[in-house]
């Protein structure tokens, strides 16, 4: 019978050895199965907003899947494996149909690659892709969605590179070329309006050409406004339908209201803009009668009497109004259209999405969680507890029982000590963590000039002293809960649900939460803080910031902050804050130092962090700070209505960012963005090598270069004041953890419009260079940094020199 036992042992050993042999064999097949079905499925993935991923933060992933099988629907699962996290979503696609779905993934810490797979119901992968994130994820293309253009008038620009760059400096790579390609898609207006906001997630530019614009409902308008506010570009080119467009609800967005349309043959301004002649005698329908214009409308081409192209900023996005129909036969073959579209779109598209303007959720989560109840028992106490327990249950227990000669009581004394210490530990928890339920909430509000809605993002931390289910009701019908809450904030995101309104199918593509009741439900663990995070829109009753005086030294803002009226007066670097009493007198309630508008991301966050903490701990009426193109203040009153099932000690505040309009008599504060073009390292990813590209946002880069590594940045400036000087600054630090005896040294090459400057063998951690405005006349400054030693680039900044210094 010993053979039976030996057989058991042998079976296990054989079992394990087979596994090891398979591992050593290493030639296991790695391929997608079910190829027959995969032929029917086409999937494209875009990582990051607009295709640019911000490593080190939360990023959207837009997935487009098309079922090319005309008779069989597809049901399956999207799976994204990113570092240690796996994100899963079920998809159902009708025969011959396609879906666009979006989920959010955490790229903090930056993963090297992301695996995307689409599984069928048998769990087999029909689509497999791997995306390398050693550099920024590149957008696949710029997607232009054209509404109701049955003639396909824009098809001629498909495949054209759109972003203008200095080719001599930045040689095109395949990826870069792909990043600048326009792809045009067409959609009937009715289908767009029925599809909803989520349909617009991968769209960069939305062109309204024709259609029954009266169908646009107030709900459609809300998400079109959201699209523009978040950085999207809306172009209208209605021609003969321009008056109808102006009568629709879309008029809220337009730079100019058109009252009629008439034939015109004077297109000199358009020809100049498009840099191509228009044959004389060509007649096209032109929308005219624009006496009513938005406050920030800007004429691009045409004249006051014949306005052809107008533009306005709308939040972080743009609305471009072309008062002539580009698809009309008389203008369709005009060669200047390509140039026109490039010029119209390259600026707005380079400005980036609004997500770059928002605070990092991780930063806010940290601040909100800074409560005494979230602190654990001190480490020394925990260590002492463990030590005393082991000594008591082991040696002391044994010695005592041995002396009393009753060692068999060991089986009783051990459980008694175990239970006693367990009860003591739980009691210790109650003493240190308390019995209160705590809610801390911050509304981050962005108000833009001349826009009736403000974008609001709410972060809520809730902490309960007892476990159980909790339901958070959000009193904002526009609230859009993130499809997956950042795992860096909580590992229990699986408990998030979005409850659709009656009749709404949550799993269907193209839906957005405009439910009357939006809620988050989750299982709460004892003494565990959780973060909820959602976005929505509120009426901008904060008013609009206006310049009261255009003097150089004194700037005055009028902020009709509801429910109190506040006047904020800036004199030099001191700001006086007050509110109007019933007699109309300004009553000062505080004096605050302005944080200089350097645009330095770290300092900005630090300042905001300070404000938030100060506001929550010792609430004043209002706190404010000024940055170069915005004004920020904090109110200690909640904006979002949050209802919960339990009683909470509440601590709520609102952080308002007023994006300022252009100062009268100036071309406005430039919007400056940093983008990484190329990161070249022969050593990146190799063991022990520090080279790495970790991401960038606005003006803050985080790139570590080893010797001979090169990184190319582009700073985009919009608008450019060519009469002004600009201050270029770069902060570089030695990469201490990998520092060797090699000298700290790097080279910088600046390149712009007929401008080329090489700064070789730089040994300073901070480098400043004055650049004339005409050197960046085309809105871009190329920065190439080559390391001679291991360095980390922490900040790259371009700021206009003040008029006095100028």
């Amino acid at each position, binding site marked *: 019978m010993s053979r039976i036992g030996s057989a*058991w042992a042998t079976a296990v050993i054989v*079992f*394990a050895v087979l*596994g090891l042999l398979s591992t050593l064999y290493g030639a296991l097949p790695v391929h997608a199965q079910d190829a027959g079905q995969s032929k029917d499925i086409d999937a494209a993935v875009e990582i990051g907003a607009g295709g640019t991923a911000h490593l080190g933060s939360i990023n959207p992933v837009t997935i487009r899947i098309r079922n090319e099988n005309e008779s069989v629907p597809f049901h399956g699962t999207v799976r994204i494996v990113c570092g240690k996290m796996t994100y899963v979503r079920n998809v159902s696609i009708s025969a011959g149909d396609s879906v666009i779905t979006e989920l959010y993934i955490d790229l903090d810490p930056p993963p090297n690659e992301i695996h995307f797979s689409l599984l069928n119901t048998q769990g087999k992968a029909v689509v497999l892709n791997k995306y390398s994130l050693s550099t920024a994820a590149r957008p696949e293309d710029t997607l232009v969605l054209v509404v109701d253009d049955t003639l396909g008038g824009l098809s001629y620009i498909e495949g054209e590179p759109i972003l203008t760059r200095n080719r001599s400096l930045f040689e095109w790579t395949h990826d870069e070329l792909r990043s600048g390609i326009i792809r045009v898609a067409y959609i009937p207006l009715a289908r767009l309006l029925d599809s909803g906001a989520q349909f617009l997630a991968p769209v960069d530019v939305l062109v309204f050409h024709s259609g029954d614009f009266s169908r646009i409902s107030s709900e459609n308008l809300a998400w079109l406004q959201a699209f523009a506010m978040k950085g999207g570009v809306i172009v209208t080119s209605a021609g003969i339908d321009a008056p109808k467009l102006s009568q629709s609800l879309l008029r809220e967005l337009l730079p100019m209201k058109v009252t009629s349309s008439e034939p015109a043959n004077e297109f000199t301004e358009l020809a100049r803009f498009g840099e191509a002649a228009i044959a004389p005698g060509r007649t096209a329908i032109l929308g005219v009668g624009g006496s009513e214009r938005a406050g920030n409308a800007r004429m691009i081409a045409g004249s006051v009497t014949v306005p052809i192209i107008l533009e306005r900023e709308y939040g972080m996005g743009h609305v471009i109004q072309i008062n002539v129909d580009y698809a009309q036969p008389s203008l369709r073959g005009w060669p200047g259209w390509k140039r026109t579209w490039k010029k119209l779109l390259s600026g707005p598209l380079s400005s980036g999405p609004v997500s770059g303007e928002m605070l990092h959720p991780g930063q806010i989560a940290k601040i909100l969680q800074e409560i005494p109840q979230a*602190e654990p028992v001190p*480490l020394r106490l925990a260590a002492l507890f*463990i030590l005393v327990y082991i000594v008591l249950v082991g040696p002391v227990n044994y010695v005592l029982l041995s002396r009393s000669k009753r060692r068999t009581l060991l*089986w009783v004394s051990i459980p008694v000590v175990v239970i006693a210490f*367990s009860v003591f530990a*739980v009691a210790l928890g109650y003493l240190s963590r308390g019995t209160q339920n705590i809610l801390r909430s911050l509304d981050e509000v962005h108000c833009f000039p001349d826009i009736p809605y403000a974008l609001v993002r709410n972060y809520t931390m809730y902490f309960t002293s007892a476990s159980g289910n909790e339901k958070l009701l959000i009193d904002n019908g526009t609230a859009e809960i993130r499809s997956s809450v950042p795992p860096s904030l909580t590992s229990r995101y699986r408990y998030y649900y979005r409850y659709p309104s009656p009749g709404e199918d949550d799993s269907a593509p193209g839906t957005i939460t405009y439910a009357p009741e939006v809620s988050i439900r989750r299982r709460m663990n004892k003494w565990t803080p959780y973060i909820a995070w959602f976005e929505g829109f509120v009426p901008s009753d904060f008013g609009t910031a206006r310049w009261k005086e255009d003097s150089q030294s004194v700037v005055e803002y009028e902020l009709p902050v509801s429910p109190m009226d506040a006047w904020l007066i800036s004199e030099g670097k001191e700001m006086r804050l007050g509110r109007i009493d019933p007699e109309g007198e300004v009553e000062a309630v505080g004096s605050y130092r302005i944080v200089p508008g350097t645009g330095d991301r770290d300092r900005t966050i630090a300042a905001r962090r300070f404000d938030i903490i100060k506001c929550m701990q010792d609430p004043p009426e209002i706190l404010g700070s000024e940055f170069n193109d915005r004004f920020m203040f904090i109110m200690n009153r909640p904006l979002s209505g949050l209802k919960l099932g339990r009683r909470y000690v509440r601590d709520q505040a609102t952080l308002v960012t007023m994006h300022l309009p252009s100062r009268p008599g100036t071309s406005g504060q430039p919007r400056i963005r940093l983008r990484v073009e190329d990161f070249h390292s022969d050593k990146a990813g190799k063991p022990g090598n520090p080279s790495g590209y970790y991401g960038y946002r606005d003006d803050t880069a985080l790139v570590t270069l080893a010797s001979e590594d090169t990184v190319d940045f582009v700073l985009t400036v919009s608008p450019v004041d060519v009469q002004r000087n600009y201050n270029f600054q770069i902060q570089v630090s030695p990469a201490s953890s990998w520092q060797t005896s090699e000298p700290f040294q790097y080279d910088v090459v600046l390149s712009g419009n007929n401008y080329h400057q090489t700064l070789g063998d730089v040994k300073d951690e901070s480098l400043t260079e004055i650049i004339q405005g005409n050197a960046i006349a085309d809105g871009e400054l190329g920065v190439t940094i080559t390391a001679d030693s291991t360095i980390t680039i922490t900040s790259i900044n371009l700021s206009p020199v003040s008029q006095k210094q100028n």
Partner: protein
Amino acid sequence: MIGRITAIVIKEFRQKARGLSTIGVLTFVLGVIALVSYLILLSGYAQIESGFQKASDVGRNLAVAVLITQLILTAVFGLSFNGSAITQERDRETIDLLNLTLLGNAEIIIGKMMSSMLYIILLLFAGLPFFALSYTFGGWELSEILAAIAVEFSLVILVSSYGLLISVTSKDTRVALGRTFAVLIFGAVGTLYFGIRLLSQSLSGIDAFHKIMGFISLLLNPGFALWSILFPDIQSHISSTSSALTTLSANLPFWVLAAIFQLLVSMLAISAAIRCYKMIRQGVR
């Protein structure tokens, strides 16, 4: 029968209480858990200081670390205690005396197993203050820990039954211990390999052999059951690897299925051990 088994257990307990080894093993096990806990707390407090982690994250990490340490120690001690249960009788030349008693084969085997198992359960129970400490940090629920402890219990039964089988079929303690550790190492590595191979099938192809081996490995290795408790999102992933698992796990959590499977395997091993012991008594071996 229960009375006779109890008598064996009491006899074993009295014997164990007399020596220093019982308290020595307990102190050693708690010392290892304490060391792991302290390291987790040390790094966790540093992470809390720097803002990278919350107290609840540290609490969860502490609980997970204690669970994994207990799991490993349970497997090691469970196999070695039971692996030497019968061979020690041989080494001390007391097996003939044992055979002369009126105790049945099953009573001897189950009695031996129970006494070892209860001691291992006591070792597990001694870890309770560590869980209580991690509970004060937040981050986990009582139900999760109870499920994890149930997984550990099923492992105790599995390794005890397997250890006894090895003990019955080995000539002496040295051979028995060698076999138990071979089983432990190769079993752990093999099940981990096949299990992970099956779970990653979405990213690569897999053949029928790997699928069957992977299926058994998922159910046999308690690490996967523990994983499915601590990271419930993985449950659907595990279930999707097999249509049988998909059907079964529709009603039961994966860790319950794994525990049932392990109990069945344990029953087979115990019955085999009883038959082997019968042969020894009959002088066949």
